[in-house]
C-alpha cells in the first residue's frame, strides 16, 4: 500500500502541477476595453463606433442580413416620406406600401426579423450602449482634459439624439444612461428599466443637450471633420425637442389624447397630461438660441445664399455639404452604390441592368402646396378622369416656385440640366418608370448622383428648420407678428419668393405649416410634423386617397389625367408606434394605447 500511495502522490502532483495553467487562455494581444481606452487612437476609433451606431442615417440604403444597422432608418427601399402625402413608390423593395399604407404593421411585425419597417428600437439602444461605454471610459484615455470633455460631449449628444429618436416615435421611453450588464438571472430585473414619463424623457434630453453644449466646439477647423458634432447641433436638438414637446400631440390645449386613455400612468407616458402654454415659450427661446448661435457665435452658420438662380441655390444645399446652412449631417458611404441608385434615382436614370427601382414619385396632393413664383396659388381645376393636354401640364408645373423646380424631376425636362437629354414620362416604352410617373420624381438629394459618384450626406439639422420652428412657436404664444413674419420670410427670400404677411394666429399657423412642408419637403420632417400636429388622420394626408397627374401617350398630343394612385389606411393609434411585442412580453414596458 505504501508504494501505491507514493505512486499516487507522484501522479497527482505531476498532473496538477500547473493544471490551472494548462486550461488558462494563453496571454494574447486581444484588445480589451482597457487597451482601447489606454490608447488615444483607439479611443477615437471607439468614438467613431458611437457615431456609426448612434447617428441618424435617414437615407434608405443598402441593407444586408448580417448587419441590421443597414436598415435602421429609412424604410427599406424608400424614404419614410412615402408614408405621408409627399411621395408614392412602387416596386418590390419598398416596405412602406406593404405595411404603412395597408395599416398592417403591429407590435409583432416591428421586429428585428422583418427588415421592412423604418426603425428598430434595439438598434437605437445599441448606439446608446456604445455612447455609455465611451462616456464611462474616456477619462482613462491619454487626451488632454478639454479634448476628453469635448469628445464626451459628442457621445452625450449622440446618446441624447438616440433617445429623441425613440421618443418621437414612442413617447416616454426607457432612459439608459449607463452600461447595462447581466451575468446571472439575478441581474435581469435590474436591467428592465421601465418607461420614463414623456415629461421626464423630454427633460432628460434637454438637460443632456445643455450639458453637451458646454463643451462642444463651434466648428472643427479641419474640414475633414465635417459631420462631427458642433455646439449648434446640441442647441438644435434641444430646440426641436422642445418644439415637439409643446405640440398638440403631447401638449393638447384641451389635454385630449389621440385615442382615449383612462390609465393615468399610461397617460403620462404618451404626453403631458395637462396643457401648459409655457412649453411653447420654452420652444421659442430654444429655437431663437439656435438662430443666435448661428448669427453671433458660430462664425459660419447662415442660410445658404450662393448662386444667382434660386433653383440652383436651393438644390445646392442638399448636394454641397460644406454649405454653411448645415449644422449636422451624417455620412453614409463614400460612393453611391447600386441599391442607393435603385432606391433613390428615377427608374430611367438608374444604371443599366438594375430592375425594380423604387421610383419616388411626388404626389399631386403634395404638389398643391407649392405656390407659383408670384406667391399665389396655382389653379388646379382638373377633374378626375378627364384628359387634359400635355402642354397644360407643362405650363402649370413650370409656373411653380423654385423649390418645386429644384425638388421634382418633371416630364419634358433634362435630368442633368444642359445635357440636352429630355425625358418624357408618357412614353410607355420608357424603361422602368411604370405607373406612377406623372407629377414627377424626387430629385432633391440626388441631383447629379450616379453610380459610384460621391454619395450625399444626410442632413440631420439645417438652419432653415429653426427659422420655421421659431416662427411656429412664436405664433403659438401670440408673439410679435413682425418677428414671426421675419422668420418665415427669411426662408422665402432665400428662394426669391415674395414675403408673407401676418393676419391672425390661425391663418399664420396654416402659412407656417405650408411653408414648412415646402421648405423641408422629403427631409422626413413631415412624417413627424403631421403626428405632432395631429393632422395625419385628415383625408388625403396620411389617410385616404392619394392622387397623381397621370400621363398618356395619346395622339396627336399626349394628355394627362388626375387619377388616384393609392388609398391609405390610418388609425389614430398610429400617432405613436407600438413597442415590440417581445419587449412587452418581458413585462417591463407598458404598451402604447391601441396596440
Amino acid at each position, binding site marked *: 500500500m505504501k508504494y501505491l500511495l507514493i505512486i499516487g502522490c507522484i501522479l*497527482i502532483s505531476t498532473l496538477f502541477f500547473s493544471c490551472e495553467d494548462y486550461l488558462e487562455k494563453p496571454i494574447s494581444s486581444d484588445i480589451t476595453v482597457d487597451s482601447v481606452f489606454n490608447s488615444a487612437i483607439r479611443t477615437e476609433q471607439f468614438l467613431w463606433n458611437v457615431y456609426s451606431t448612434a447617428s441618424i442615417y435617414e437615407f434608405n440604403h443598402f441593407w444586408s442580413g448580417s448587419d441590421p444597422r*443597414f436598415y435602421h432608418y429609412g424604410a427599406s427601399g424608400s424614404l419614410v416620406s412615402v408614408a405621408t402625402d409627399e411621395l408614392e413608390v412602387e416596386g418590390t423593395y419598398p416596405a412602406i406600401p406593404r405595411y404603412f399604407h395597408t395599416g398592417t404593421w403591429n407590435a409583432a411585425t416591428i421586429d428585428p426579423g422583418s427588415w421592412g419597417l423604418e426603425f428598430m428600437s434595439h438598434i437605437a439602444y445599441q448606439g446608446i450602449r456604445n455612447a455609455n461605454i465611451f462616456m464611462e471610459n474616456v477619462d482613462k484615455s491619454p487626451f488632454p482634459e478639454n479634448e476628453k470633455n469635448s469628445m464626451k460631449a459628442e457621445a452625450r449628444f449622440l446618446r441624447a439624439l438616440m433617445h429623441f429618436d425613440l421618443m418621437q416615435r414612442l413617447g416616454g421611453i426607457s432612459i439608459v444612461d449607463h452600461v447595462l450588464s447581466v451575468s446571472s438571472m439575478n441581474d*435581469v430585473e435590474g436591467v428592465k428599466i421601465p418607461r420614463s414619463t414623456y415629461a421626464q424623457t423630454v427633460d432628460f434630453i434637454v438637460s443632456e443637450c445643455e450639458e453637451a453644449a458646454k463643451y462642444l466646439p463651434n466648428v472643427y477647423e479641419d474640414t*475633414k471633420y465635417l459631420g462631427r458634432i458642433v455646439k449648434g447641433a446640441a442647441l438644435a436638438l434641444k430646440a426641436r425637442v422642445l418644439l415637439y414637446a409643446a405640440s398638440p400631440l403631447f401638449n393638447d390645449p384641451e389635454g385630449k389624447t389621440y385615442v382615449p386613455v383612462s390609465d393615468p400612468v399610461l397617460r403620462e407616458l404618451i404626453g403631458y397630461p395637462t396643457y401648459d402654454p409655457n412649453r411653447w415659450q420654452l420652444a421659442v427661446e430654444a429655437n431663437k438660441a439656435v438662430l443666435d448661435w448661428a448669427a453671433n457665435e458660430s462664425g459660419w452658420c447662415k442660410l445658404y445664399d450662393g448662386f444667382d438662380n434660386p433653383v440652383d441655390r436651393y438644390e445646392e444645399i442638399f448636394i454641397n455639404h460644406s454649405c454653411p446652412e448645415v449644422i449636422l449631417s451624417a455620412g453614409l458611404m*463614400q460612393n453611391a452604390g447600386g441599391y442607393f441608385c435603385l432606391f433613390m434615382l428615377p427608374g430611367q436614370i438608374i444604371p443599366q441592368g438594375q430592375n425594380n427601382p423604387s421610383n419616388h414619385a411626388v404626389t399631386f396632393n403634395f404638389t398643391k402646396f407649392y405656390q407659383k413664383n408670384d406667391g399665389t396659388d396655382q389653379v388646379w381645376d382638373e377633374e378626375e378622369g378627364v384628359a387634359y393636354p400635355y402642354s397644360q401640364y407643362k405650363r402649370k408645373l413650370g409656373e411653380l416656385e423654385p423649390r418645386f423646380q429644384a425638388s421634382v424631376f418633371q416630364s419634358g425636362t433634362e435630368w442633368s440640366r444642359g445635357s440636352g437629354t429630355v425625358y418624357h414620362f408618357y412614353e410607355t416604352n420608357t424603361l422602368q418608370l411604370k405607373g406612377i410617373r406623372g407629377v414627377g420624381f424626387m430629385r432633391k438629394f440626388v441631383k447629379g448622383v450616379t453610380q459610384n459618384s*460621391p454619395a450625399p450626406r444626410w442632413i440631420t439639422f439645417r438652419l432653415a428648420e429653426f427659422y420655421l420652428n421659431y416662427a411656429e412657436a412664436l405664433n403659438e404664444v401670440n408673439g410679435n407678428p413682425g418677428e414671426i413674419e421675419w422668420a418665415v420670410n427669411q426662408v422665402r427670400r432665400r428662394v426669391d419668393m415674395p414675403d408673407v404677411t401676418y393676419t391672425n394666429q390661425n391663418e399664420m399657423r396654416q402659412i407656417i405649416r405650408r411653408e414648412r412642408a415646402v421648405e423641408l419637403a422629403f427631409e422626413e420632417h413631415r412624417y413627424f410634423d403631421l403626428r405632432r400636429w395631429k393632422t395625419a388622420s385628415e383625408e388625403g394626408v396620411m389617410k385616404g386617397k392619394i392622387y397623381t397627374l397621370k400621363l398618356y401617350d395619346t395622339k396627336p398630343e399626349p394628355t394627362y389625367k388626375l387619377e388616384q394612385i393609392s388609398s391609405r389606411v390610418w388609425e389614430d393609434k398610429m400617432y405613436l408606434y407600438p413597442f415590440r411585442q417581445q419587449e412587452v412580453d418581458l413585462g*417591463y414596458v407598458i404598451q402604447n394605447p391601441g396596440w
Partner: protein
Amino acid sequence: MQIMNDYRQRESIKHFLLTVRITALLLFTIALHTMANTGYSPNSKTNDLENRSSQQSKKMITGTVADDKGIPIIGANIIETGTANGTVTDMDGKFSLRVNDDATIRVTYIGYFSQEIATAGRTNLSIILKEDTQALDEVVVIGYGTQRKITTTGAITSVSNEELIKAPVAGVSNALTGLTSGLQSVQVSGEFGNDRANIRIRGIGTLYTGGAAPLILVDGVERSTYNDIDPNEIESLNVLKDASATAVFGVRGANGVILITTRSGKEGKPRVSATVNAAALQPSILPEMLRSYDYALLRNEAERNMGRTPTFSDEDLRIYQSGEDPIFHPDKNWIEELIRPLSFQQSYNVNLSGGTEGVRYFTSLGYFNQFGGYNKPEQDFGFSPEHSYDRYNLRMNFDFDVTKDLLLSVKLGNQVAENIYPTGGAWAAFDKATSTAPMSSPGFIDGKVITEVSGFPQGVREFNPWVETGPTSGSSYGLQEKNYGNTINTNISLRYNLDRFIKGLSIRAMGAYDSYYNKYSRRQHYFDTYTVMKDPESGLPIVFRNDESGPYYSLGENISDGNKWRKMYGEAAVDYERAIADNHKISGLLLGTMQKAYYPNMQYKLPTAYIGLVGRITYDYKSRYLAEINAGYNGSENFPEGSRFGFFPAFSLGWIPTEESFFPENKILTFMKIRGSYGEVGNDKIGGNRYLYIEGPYALTNDGNARTTFGIPGVNEATYPQYKEGLPGNPNVTWERARKWNIGFDMKLLKDKLSITADYFEEKRDNILWNLSTIPELVAIRLAPANIGKVNNYGYELEVGYRDKIDAVNYWLKGLYSFSRNTIIFQDEPNRKYEWMRRTGQSVGQHFGLVFDGFYNTQEEIDDPERPISQWEGAGLKPGDMRYRDLNGDKRITEEDMQPIGYNDFPEINYSGSFGLSYKGFDMTALFQGAANVSIYFAKNAGAYAFDSDWGAAYSWQLERWEQGRYERGEKISYPRVELSPTLGLHNYQKSSFWVQDASYVRLKNLEIGYRLSSSSLKQIGLQALRFYVSGNNLITWTGIRYTMDPDARESYGRVMPPMRVFNAGVNVQF
C-alpha cells in the same frame, strides 16, 4: 490541357504513394509475422519437416472438440502449454497437432470453460468443453478499463464485431441502428460520403440540441472521425448510459459515451480473413412526379385559383398528352433522368491476426467504395463526373510482451476517404431532380445540352437541371468537387505489472497522436451549350451553339487551415486489483488524462485543452454484493479559474441474489442481478464558443456600409475604422450538471435460454448553459450563456433475448425497446399570452403550430361573419383553404393560436426485433427496427409544396388537392387548393398540424442469409472456412407519412437523397 495533365499527374502520384503505404504495411506485417513465427510450429507440412530435424521426441495428436450436446466447436484454440505451439479446430471440430510426448494442451473457446489435458500416452482425444453460462470471464470495456461483465453495476450495452459487420453500410453510425437499446439514430441523408447518422443516447437531456451528442472514444481517445473506421477493425462497441459508467468522463460525459475498441491479436495460429462484398443500392423512396400533361392541368388550375389566366392552352395540353413534340413540349421525368435507379457499392477487407507469447498482432486492410447516385451526362469532360465515395482503411495493432511484466501496445489506424460529388454538394443535384417542372427543358438534343429554348408555350420557364446544377452543373460547365480526408490515429501504451512488488498492482501509460488533413478541390470543364429555336417558317427545331461556350479546363484547389488538425492525448494510471481471503475482491484505479487539440480555425486560434483525473474503487463480496465508486475530476477551458474544475462522483450497488446461499437451486431463474446507480456528470458545450468567462476582444472593423464617414464628399471625405465592443463574458459560468439515477436488473431464465435486461432511468439536468432570453433590448448586446436551464429526462429500456436449439437448428430471438422523454423545466422564457404557447414544460425541440381542422369547402363558410380572420389571408380566403382552430377565441388566427403539435425530431420510442437461425452450414438473421413518438415538419425544403417558387415540380399525391369537383364528388382530399409559389407567409403554409406529421416507422432494417461450406472439401485447397451470403439493408419501410418521403428526412436538411436500400452479396474466406 496542361492543367488537366498536371492534375492527372498529381492524382497518380497520390495513388502511387497510397500503394507504397499499403505495400509497406503488408511487408511489415509479413516480416513481423515471420519473426513472431520463429519457434512457432503451425500445423503445416513444411514446418513439420523443419521441426522434425531439431526436436526428436514428438508425436502427432488428433482429436475433436465439441460442446456438451455433442455439437462440434469450430475455431477452438489448442495450445501446447509452455510453448507457442498450437492450432485451431476446423469446421468439424477436429484438430491435429504435433506435440512433445508428455505435453499438456490447453483448449480454450470464448464462452466455454477452458480445459487442460495431459496428452501423455494419448494420441486421439475427444474433448468436451463445458459452457460457461455465466460467462464469468466475459469482460466489458468500460471507461478507462475493463470489467468482468457479471460484476458490472453500470448500464452498459455492447455490440460485437459480428453484429456490426452485418449491415452493408458505410459507417459505424449507421450499422448501429437497432442493435442496442437506449440509442437513437436518425440518418437524414443517403448521400455517399455524407450519410452519417445523428446519434443520441437516452434522448436529449439538454437545451442546446447540438450539444446533446454523445462522447465517442476510439481506443480511449475522443475521435470525431470514428464513422470512417472500417467496422471490420472493431472488436466491440460499448454504449455507456448511466452515471456510474460515464462519471469518469466528468465534464464531457453527460450525454452518454460510446467506446469503440479496435481488435487485437490473440495468441494462436495466424488467421487470415478476407471478405468481399458487392451491393446494389437504390434510394429507399423517391417521390412520384407529375408528368407534363398532369402538371399542366394542375398548373392551369392553380392559376385559375389565383385569378390568373392559365398558362397552357388546350392545344398545348393536347401536345403534352400525345408527347409528339419532345423539344418544345418536353415531358421529362427528371428523377429518372438524373437519379440512377441503381448505384453500386463494394467493399473489401482482408485482415490477419494471431500471435505468440511474445507478440500478438492484428492487421487489417479495407477498401470501401460507393459510386453512382446520379446519371452521367453524355459530354466528355476529360474526367469522370461520377459521384463516388472511396475509403481506404489500414490498421495495425500490436501487443508486445517486452518482458514478463511489461506490455507494449501499439495501435495505428489510418482512414483515407475521398468523396467526389457534383457541385454544390450532391444534394443540389437531388434537389433539382425533384423540383424541376417536367416541361422545363428538352435536356439534350442529339447529345447537345440545351441551355436556351425559344419556342416554349408563352410563359413557360426554361430550366435545364442538367445544366443549372447536378452532374454537369455550374451553368454550362462540367464541374466536380472533391473532398479528400486523411486521418491517422496512433496509440502507444505501456503496462507494467508490479505484482512482484505489490500483488495486484500495475501501472500504465498511454499516449495518442491523431492528425487529420482535408483537401477540397474542384475542377471544371466548359463545354459547348446550345440553343434550340423554332424555325419560324417550317416550325422545325434549329439547334445552334452558344457563343460563350467552349472547351476550357480549370482546376481550383482550396486548402484551408480549418481542415487540418492534430490532437495529442496522454494518460497515466495506477491499477490495483486483489482478492482478499477469496471472498473480498477489490480494485482501484487512479488515472490522469490530458488532451490538447489544434484546430487552426477555432475561435481565438488557440489549441483546446482538457485535463482530468479519474478514480474508481470497486468492491465485490463473493460475487454477491457489488459496490462501485466512480469519479471524474475534470477541468474545462471554458470556465474561469476557481470554478474551472469540477468533481463528478457516481455510486452504484449491485446484488446478485442467485449467488446467495439461501437462494434455491432451480431451473427457472438461474441468474439475477439487481443494480442501481446515482451520479453526477457534466457538459461544457454551447455552440463553438470558448472561454465563456472572459470578455471577447474588441475588434477594429472597417467593413460594411454603415460606416463613420466625415468630410466633404468628393473632396476630403473619408471612412474611419471603428473599435467595436467584444461579446461580454460571464464570470460565473460553470458546467452543466446532470444528475442521473438508474435502476436495472439482468436475469437469465430457463436454463439461461432466456435473458432479460431492464433499466429505468431518470436524469435531472441543471446549470444548463443557455442564453438568457428575457433580457430587454435596452442591454443591446448578446450576452454570454449562463447556467440557467433545467431539463428533466426519464425513460426505460428493455432487452429480451432467447436462444435455443431444436435438433440441429440453433435459433435466437432478440427484442429491444427504449423510451425516453424530456421536459424543459426552465429556460428563461418570456411571459406568453396563453399557456399553450409556452415552450417550457414541453420537450426540447417540440414542434409548435396551428391546429389544422379540415378545409373550408364552400363560399358560405368563407363568408360566415363568425369565421376567424387569418393574419396571413391577405386578400381573403377561398374554398379549399385550410381551417385552423382559433384557440383563444378572438376570431383571429395568429401566432397566438399555435400550440404544441406532434413530437420533436428525435423519436421517443425506438425498438427493434431480430431473430437468427442456423442449421448446419446455413444461417439467417433478420432485424426489424422502428421508431415512434416522432414528428417531421414538411415544408418547402422537404419538397412538400407543389409549384414551389412558381415553376417547382408537383407530385402525384398532390393530385389529392381540394378542388370544387373533387369536393363535390366526395373524393379524398389531402392537399389544399393548389397555388403557385407557396410560401410560409401564406395562410395555407403556416406551420400547422397538417405539415407536421407522425414520422413513426418500422423497417426491415437488415436481412442476411448465408451458407458456410463444409470443411473437408475446403481443406484440400487450404481454407479454414468459406461463407457466402446475401444481405440487405433498409429493405422495406412501413410508415404513415402522407408524402413520399423517408421518415428520417428532415425539413431542416432540405431535399436530400434518402437513405439507401442495399442489396448485397458477399463472400468471406478464412485461412
